[in-house]
């Protein structure tokens, strides 16, 4: 972590510990209304998730009538690539979430950096993930914009920015598998991002496509969650193969301020480098 990152995390910790510094709320207890773990973690696009995919959950513990937010830092380290991400999200009333992330991809063999900014919006349109029979449903948009455009152009991407649209469904059962709280999430995505947008948007094959994403998770304890995700990727570039991604994760929620996630990821083939597997580590602060 560089100095700037460290300072911002420190500043944040201060804000977390002295929330009255942030805003002089009339009711100091009017926060943290959601149950531990139900704010999820931060996905690679900054949107509340999930790791490789967003979920139909909203970041932070802000319930109706409350505000909340999160900041995170993530590293994905696979054979030929390293992806560093930092970002955050603000949530209002468990209804709407705005997210932001800066991604920095290192192509190890070429010692080349590709940076991308992501902004997102997600709206809960229906349902409560725990207490309704029907799933909680969100609509989302994730816009990506490459700051380093060379690689995307070289591999034949049509655009260096683009927007994905998602519909997400999530349902948790308090008394699920093995009497443990169990969550299932399904996303339908429409977009043209090549390798999460890091290789640009669109290609010669086809432009925007519908893809599907899945996640399942089990609360082993109230604080420890084991789960897996699967993300279909579009494969738009004629010259390069793009494969689906999946992960197996363990997320730890010691309290409502911090979450830590460790995962094993398999991103498939990326720009000619086959079988990209490795680790995913993420730390999140919530306020």
């Amino acid at each position, binding site marked *: 972590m560089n100095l700037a990152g460290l300072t911002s995390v420190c500043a944040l910790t201060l804000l977390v510990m002295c929330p009255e510094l942030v805003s002089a709320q009339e009711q100091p*207890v009017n926060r943290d*209304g959601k149950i*531990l773990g139900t704010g999820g973690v931060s996905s690679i696009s900054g949107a509340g998730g999930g790791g490789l995919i967003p979920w139909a959950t909203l970041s932070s513990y802000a*319930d109706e*009538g409350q505000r909340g937010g999160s900041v995170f830092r993530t590293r994905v380290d696979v054979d030929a690539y390293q992806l560093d991400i930092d970002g955050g999200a603000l949530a209002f009333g468990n209804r709407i979430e705005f997210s932001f992330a800066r991604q920095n991809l290192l192509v190890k063999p070429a010692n080349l950096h590709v940076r991308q900014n992501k902004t997102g919006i997600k709206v809960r349109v229906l349902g409560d993930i725990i*207490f309704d029979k029907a799933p909680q449903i969100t609509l989302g948009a994730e816009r990506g914009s490459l700051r380093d455009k060379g690689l995307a152009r070289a591999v034949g991407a049509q655009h260096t920015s683009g927007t994905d649209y998602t519909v997400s469904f999530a349902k948790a059962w*308090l008394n699920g598998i*093995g*009497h443990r709280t169990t969550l299932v999430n399904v996303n339908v995505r429409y977009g043209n991002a090549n390798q999460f947008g890091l290789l640009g948007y669109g290609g010669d094959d086809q432009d925007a496509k519908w893809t599907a994403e899945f996640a399942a998770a089990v609360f082993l*304890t109230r604080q420890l969650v084991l789960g897996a995700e699967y993300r279909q990727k579009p494969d738009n570039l004629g010259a390069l193969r793009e494969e689906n991604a999946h992960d197996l994760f363990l997320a730890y929620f010691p309290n409502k301020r911090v979450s830590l996630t460790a995962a094993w990821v398999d991103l498939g083939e990326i720009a000619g480098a086959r079988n990209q597997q490795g680790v995913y580590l993420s730390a999140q602060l919530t306020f």
Partner: protein
Amino acid sequence: MKQSFGHLMLFIKNTFLSIGLVTFLSSCASNSQQSLYDEIGGQAVLETLVDNFIMEIASDNRVLPRFLDSNVNRFREKMIEHMCLLADGPCIYTGDDMVQVHAGMNINSAEFNAIVEDLMSAMDKTGIALSSQNQILERMAPLRPQVIGI
């Protein structure tokens, strides 16, 4: 040396057999229609649970103001009966129905979750297994529409 190794193996084998047998028997026991009430330990545990629950509420500023005018003894008694009933225990609930009790309070989702978290902590402190906790919560969840926003 060889003989004692044989003894050790026999010991390990017997231990595994008896562990297996105990697990088998206890899994039979829990299959034989044991109620959730019995599973958590019956009346005594339920009473400890509600006492702990009241302690949790008393130290939770998110919801405590709601209870300032309440009669704790009545709440304790009715809550024990109500939870006993939820857990299929041998009780009769003599309190008011959920809508009547909570009507006019306009309880919101965050307050409901706070109560759920207080109950979770109380169950932890009472030593109730997570699997039983989740069954209790699963049975309380459908009551939410009778409690919030009314």
